[in-house]
């Protein structure tokens, strides 16, 4: 059952080949037997899952089931789930039981009827590219247990790649959906900024954070993204704009579609394995009638330095709320209020989070604000204008997702700059707020290679359709890791 697509699972449920309870129990059993090797779940919720499965079975019996009713899903542990621990990979929130549901949690479980399997491991406060910064220990890549699954959505990709959930939510502030999807042979999409509600999603960098999905195909991703998307009055940056029918859009021909290849992304910097995979994807899309042309995004090389000003600045402000007073970790050593703040935060945050808080505090401090923060926001505008110009010439943009295949544990964990440069191809889409996705295009010595598609604002539907047409013509995305 764990190799079926979401449409196949839905058909099986509707035809009574299996019940949602049986399907959910199948996944719970697989998690119990196999997740010890991966560490992808930090909390498994069997009682909730089975109760929601029973409710889904009742809906199915009444003929009131939607496209996803009864199919289980796992949530990245950044989304608040009422009554369930929501720790965001941090000691700071290790004992935090969320008192309310994130909007997407309501949409996917209460409304769509998907049983919640559990909460997934991640880099602490989504800050990391390898899942090594989690308080709950690193997640292993199911394709090679000695390598990272990518981050920050490491648990999300590992569990879906290993068949320990049919599909999972994830978030992407600088590449945290696309890079791990590329490392684990999955299809992951970050929609347009504001498309999916951020209400109840623990904030890292609010102008960049966006929720999305990691799945085993573009078709699966479209089904779940459809159910997650839409205007939410509880999120002040939510888009007041109707959502396209992403699933109905999957049949369109892509003949004559114009895709741009930004020369800055194809310069030196990617490994031979990634180059070979991306070039084979371009050749495949040409056979489907796509036209390619070279474009330029001249400011794209500045996206990593821009991001490492903007994101830490926003993080240092957002994480100021963790003060040991209202919720989260509180030091028992404090003798006065200042010590309470300092010790609680010093004990509760790990090294990567502390580094980013300090960078953010520094670039926002008096005397440095103009040189760093204001300049970064101006360069961000230049990056945005590059994309605006490009989309007058082409419909979509194709690029690598990552510089190389998944790297071994410890490879970059002592060198933050090397770790940050790993996200060089994904960050620009967050700075501009455009939708982007990664999907599989090959293997190198048994490790997956992905490529990236970036779309114009609100163009998730076209992105997913191009990915779907590519997946109808290829079967890289069907490969699963040995042993799972």
């Amino acid at each position, binding site marked *: 059952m764990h190799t079926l697509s979401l449409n196949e699972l839905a058909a099986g449920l509707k035809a009574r080949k299996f019940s949602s309870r049986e399907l959910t129990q199948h996944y719970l059993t697989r998690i119990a037997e196999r997740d010890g090797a991966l560490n992808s779940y930090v909390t498994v919720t069997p009682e909730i899952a089975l109760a929601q499965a029973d409710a889904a079975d009742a809906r199915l019996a009444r003929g009131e089931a939607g496209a996803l009713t009864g199919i289980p899903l796992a949530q990245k542990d950044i989304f608040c789930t009422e009554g369930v621990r929501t720790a965001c990979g941090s000691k700071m929130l290790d*004992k*935090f*039981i969320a*008192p309310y549901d994130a909007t997407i949690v309501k949409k996917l479980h209460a409304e769509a009827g998907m049983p919640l399997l559990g909460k997934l491991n991640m880099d602490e406060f989504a800050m990391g590219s390898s899942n090594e910064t989690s308080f709950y220990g690193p997640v292993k890549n199911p394709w090679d247990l000695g390598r990272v699954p990518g981050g920050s959505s490491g648990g999300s990709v590992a569990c879906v790649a290993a068949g320990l959930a049919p599909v999972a939510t994830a978030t992407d502030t600088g590449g945290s959906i696309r890079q791990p999807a590329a490392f684990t042979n999955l299809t992951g999409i970050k929609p347009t*900024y*504001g498309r999916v509600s951020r209400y109840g999603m623990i904030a890292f960098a609010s*102008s960049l954070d966006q929720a999305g999905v990691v799945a085993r195909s573009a078709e699966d991703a479209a089904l779940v993204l459809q159910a997650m998307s839409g205007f939410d*009055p509880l999120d*002040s940056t939510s*888009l007041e704009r109707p959502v396209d029918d992403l699933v109905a859009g999957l049949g369109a021909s892509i003949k004559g579609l114009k895709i741009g290849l930004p020369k800055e992304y194809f310069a030196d910097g990617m490994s031979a394995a990634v180059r070979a995979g991306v070039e084979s994807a371009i050749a495949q899309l040409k056979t489907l009638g796509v036209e390619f042309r070279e474009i330029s995004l001249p*400011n794209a090389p500045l996206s990593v*330095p*821009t991001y*490492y*000003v903007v994101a830490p600045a926003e993080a240092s402000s957002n994480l*100021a709320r963790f*003060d040991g*007073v*209202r*919720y*989260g970790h*509180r030091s028992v050593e404090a003798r*006065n*209020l*200042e010590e*309470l*703040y*300092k*010790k609680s*935060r*010093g*004990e509760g945050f790990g090294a990567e989070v*502390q*580094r980013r*808080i*300090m*960078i953010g*505090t*520094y*670039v926002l*401090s008096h005397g440095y604000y103009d*040189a*760093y923060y204001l*300049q*970064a*926001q*101006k*360069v*961000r*505008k*230049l990056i945005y204008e590059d994309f605006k110009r490009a989309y007058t010439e082409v419909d979509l943009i194709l690029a690598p997702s990552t510089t190389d295949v998944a790297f071994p544990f410890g490879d970059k964990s002592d*060198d*933050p*700059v090397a770790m*940050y*440069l790993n996200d060089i191809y994904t960050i620009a889409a967050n*700075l501009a*707020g*455009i939708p982007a996705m990664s999907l599989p295009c090959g293997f190198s010595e048994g490790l997956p290679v992905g490529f990236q598609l970036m779309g114009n*604002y609100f163009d998730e539907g076209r992105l997913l359709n191009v990915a779907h047409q590519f997946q109808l013509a290829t079967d890289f995305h069907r490969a699963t890791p040995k042993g799972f």
Partner: protein
Amino acid sequence: MSLTPEQVQQVAHLARLELNAEMVPTYAQQISNILAMVDQLSAADTQGVSPMAHPLGLTQRLRPDVVTEPNRREAYQAHAPAVEDGLFLVPKVIE
């Protein structure tokens, strides 16, 4: 731009973070490296460019000033480190 261990301590103070003393030299080195990478931005010509705060240029929506939330004080204080009579407790502030 590079930061000395003393400057790291000052930034940590501003951020209300107590650092593990052993980590301070490492942080100073790492943050200096990060700032050196970020310094590429100073070469960009941004004369006449307005800073970008939101990708779609949207501004914050306003809503009518009416009470919409129920009082859930008990639920929101259930996970607080220390409360008494509906109030959050902190160490004594005024002597």
